[in-house]
């Protein structure tokens, strides 16, 4: 039930913010901040209750779940469930959610109520994506988060906002519909072999598929997630959307929306179609590596700061793709850290760039020079996150990329070497930003206010968290481990992979994992 409340709080806060926005500009902000903070606290409490995996591991697959019949005629359930993976993603969601509300405090002055309505509903949709284990519900939430994001970009974005918003919407919608077809095909195939209509994740896991069909369906899911991730060559929407969005929009896009793609691959693509995912792994890993290098090179070539940061996402998320398809323990742990650390460091970079734009009204690096002299604190913070992006040991991103590379090394040496080259290029673009925009003489004679209290309130915790992940990531691994083992178990090669009429899914209780208890624990 608590899971439903998490979503409901956000939705209600969104509506309240929209309503109060008609007469006030501060009410929507306060309401949104309050709602996300409450959710954040709840998620932390949940985490502290479930931080040790030894305690709960054998009893249930999920820490918490809620399962209501929704459209019983089609076997559709309103089924939310949480394991270590979704828990960590949720904590990240609320953390970045709070930051987004804070960062928009001054930036957004027009239509404040509607802005916060959209913000809250995006977060609600993302939350739903991380929690849904009914495929219909998952698709529902997947689509739900798009519309408010569209508005966020199209209304409060920068110069080419409408182009960017439409492009974003079309890319994600088309890929989403392909996933819908795959979901439905899986649903009907599952029905034809078992006689049960179900969209339930656990039911569909062992569906007997012919290799050809499995590959097609896997690709349907894969494309939807690859567009979100974004994977080369499905990334063209990303630079536009990130660049044109308001700061809060960029933070949520980079920090959370992209993660839904990686999450979907982890949760659905590999476990549902282990055989074809394994077969497809070389292609996916190569595409991931291309993304790493290509994104880094393009980032290096940008003069628009925000666009540069946007392209780094293509590069960093390439590691996630490589790690997911390497699919061993090290790589998966690496992917988790990449997801979280990238969310925080890139989110922070977008906020800093947004702050710069607010002060200077430009994002062009050539027009910014020698800023260190006038905004030393801001420049220092920028330096910190740029270093994180490079993968400086001691900061979160390093742990993620290092583990991913270790995992990938076991699968393919070539891929690993190429990915390391990508890291090298990331040094180039990060240093370029620092050098061009912050070092040197202040030739344009900028005289700007440094980071204020509100901004420090945002930046300092994010720096601390990144340091914490970089130095002591073990709590994250502990929480993630049971979920990861479960995913690996689902994806383990199964003896029955060919079409046998009437074949039932394999029971997975052989390893102590009982069938999900359908009632609320």
């Amino acid at each position, binding site marked *: 039930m608590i899971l439903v409340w998490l979503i409901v709080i956000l939705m209600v806060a969104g509506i309240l913010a929209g309503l109060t926005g008609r007469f006030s500009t501060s009410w929507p902000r306060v309401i949104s901040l309050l709602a996300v903070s409450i959710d954040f606290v709840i998620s932390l409490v949940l985490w502290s209750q479930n931080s040790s995996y030894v305690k709960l591991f054998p009893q249930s697959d999920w820490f918490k779940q809620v399962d209501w*019949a929704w459209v*019983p*005629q089609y076997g559709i359930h309103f089924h939310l469930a949480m394991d270590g993976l979704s828990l960590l993603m949720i904590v990240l969601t609320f953390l970045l959610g709070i930051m987004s509300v804070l960062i928009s405090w001054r930036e957004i002055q027009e239509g404040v109520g*509607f802005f916060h309505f959209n913000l809250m509903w995006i977060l609600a949709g993302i939350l739903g994506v991380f929690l849904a284990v009914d495929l219909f519900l998952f698709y529902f939430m997947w689509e739900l988060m798009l519309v408010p994001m*569209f508005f966020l970009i199209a*209304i409060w974005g920068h110069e080419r906002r409408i182009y960017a918003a439409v492009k974003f919407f079309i890319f994600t919608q088309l890929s989403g519909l392909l996933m819908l*077809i795959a979901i*439905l095909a899986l649903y009907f195939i599952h029905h034809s072999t078992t006689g049960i209509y179900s969209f339930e994740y656990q039911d569909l896991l062992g569906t007997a598929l012919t290799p050809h069909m499995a590959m097609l369906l896997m690709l349907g899911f894969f494309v939807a997630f690859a567009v979100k991730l974004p994977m080369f060559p499905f990334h063209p929407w990303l630079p536009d959307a990130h660049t044109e969005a308001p700061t809060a929009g960029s933070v949520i896009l980079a920090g959370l929306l992209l993660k839904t793609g990686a999450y979907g691959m982890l949760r659905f693509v590999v476990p549902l179609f282990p055989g074809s995912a394994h077969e497809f792994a070389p292609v996916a890993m190569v595409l991931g590596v291309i993304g790493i290098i290509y994104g880094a090179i393009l980032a290096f070539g940008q003069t628009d700061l925000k666009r540069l940061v946007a392209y780094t996402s293509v590069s960093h998320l390439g590691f996630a793709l490589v790690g997911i398809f390497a699919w061993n323990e090290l790589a998966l742990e690496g992917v988790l850290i990449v997801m979280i650390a990238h969310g925080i460091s890139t989110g922070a970079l977008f906020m800093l760039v947004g702050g710069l734009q607010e002060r200077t009204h430009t994002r062009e690096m050539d027009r910014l020079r020698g800023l260190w002299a006038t905004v030393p604190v801001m420049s220092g913070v920028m330096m910190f996150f740029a270093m994180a992006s490079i993968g400086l040991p001691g900061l979160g991103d390093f742990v993620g990329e290092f583990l991913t590379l270790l995992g990938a090394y076991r699968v393919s040496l070539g891929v690993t070497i190429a990915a390391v080259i990508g890291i090298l290029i990331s040094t180039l673009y990060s240093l370029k930003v620092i050098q061009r925009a912050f070092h040197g003489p202040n030739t344009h004679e900028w005289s700007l206010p440094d980071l204020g209290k509100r901004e420090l309130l945002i930046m300092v915790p994010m720096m601390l968290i990144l340091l914490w992940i970089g130095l002591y990531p073990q709590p994250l691994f502990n929480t993630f481990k049971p979920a990861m083992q479960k995913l690996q178990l689902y994806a383990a090669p199964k003896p029955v992979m060919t079409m046998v009429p009437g074949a039932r899914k394999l029971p997975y209780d052989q390893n102590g994992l009982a069938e999900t208890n359908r009632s609320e624990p």
Partner: protein
Amino acid sequence: MNGTDLIAILPLLVLTVAAVVVMVAVCIRRSHLLAVWLTLLGLAAAFVSLWPAAAVAPAQVTPLLVIDGYALFYMGLIIAATFVTVILSYGYLENQEGYSEELYILILTAALGSSVLVASNHFVSFFLGLEVLSVALYAMSAYLCNRPLPLEAGIKYLVLAAVSAAFLLFGMALIYAQLGTLQFGQIAAMLISGASYEKTLIYPGLALMITGIGFKLAVVPFHMWTPDVYEGAPAPVTAFVATVSKGGMVALLLRYFYETGAYRLHRVFVVFSIIAIASMIAGNLLALLQNNVKRILAYSSIAHLGYILVAFLAGGNRAAEAVTFYLVAYFVTTLGAFGVVSVLSNGERDADSIEDYESLFWRRPVLAGIFTLMLLSLAGIPLTAGFVGKFFLIAAGSSASLWGLIFVLVVTSVVGLFYYLRILVALYRSPEETGKAAPAAVPSLSLSGSYALAGLTVLLVWIGVYPAPFLEAIQHAVSTLRLF
């Protein structure tokens, strides 16, 4: 015909009486409000009379009409949609010059025709219902006869509908000539058993009938009239054409092709597949080129009928369910969308250019919000009825493995996003950009129209979030359809 039969067709009788009562009342005293109240009362009475009728269903009343759960469900839908149309018309016509009362007589007549259509399982009642509906629609489209566009719409519709009716009649005649029966049930038996029958005339007959039906549904290549009529007709009438007239025809299409088993014929399947694909592609692509909201909605309706045909082709109970559900969602959405158009229209012209909607959000946030929801529903985005409807359509199609058709549906509906988004973007454009700052005094909306729109919005979200009860009612209704 006995007492039970009369109870069974009570909804039709009530509608007939209501039309007469309104006509007489208009003769005695011309009052817009009185006419509206009488019409609404008549519609409410007709709606209530569905329950006594349901108590005696299923009933075959004369060879012409069958009153079963399916027919009654669609009648309910038609009556409800008519109810909303009347409310919208009231606010709309208050702003117009000239007499308004006669429109309600026409609306009631058209609703009657459509109701007969959904209850017919005989060529005669089919044609009768169709003509009652069409004749009323000619006059309704041209109701504002001092403006050029409605006149053009009326004439165009008159000529083309008459021609298509001739096609339909000819098709019926050919089938009758071959099989010697006008009843759907008997046609089914003969189509299946009649290996010995000479069948040469069946296909030409079916082809001609499909022409007639296709015209009414406005599917490609029989869609030419749609944009002009949608654009020209007064907004509430357009809403009526898009919902009641098309909905009645879809109901008949399902009954005719499913009960006769004609949808199983390979050639029929091929023809409908081509029509569906052409409608989806042409509807969505042509809508991209339009600048007029009513025309955009016209082309989008062509595409939507194409989507419906995809599920129709899947065949079986699930398909009928999906089609019916989609229609319910489509009714709500279309009425809502045209409702917004009609409450924004004034005495001189309809609010049909995209410019009329620019920055609407900053002037009238609630109305813009409603329009947004309607557009999102048309585009099939979650939380709205259109999403669930589209989901069921795709589900029906994939249960029959119509992958090619589904693929076209998916790709074209993404194309469709472009023009829905275009309107959306216009709605939210900032006032400084468009120079349309909030006017000093915002003219207030008609109260009746606001209530209707609020109701539709609630319904739209309700169906979109919790479709189970609606689906159950639809399943119950569709189960009475005798599939062959």
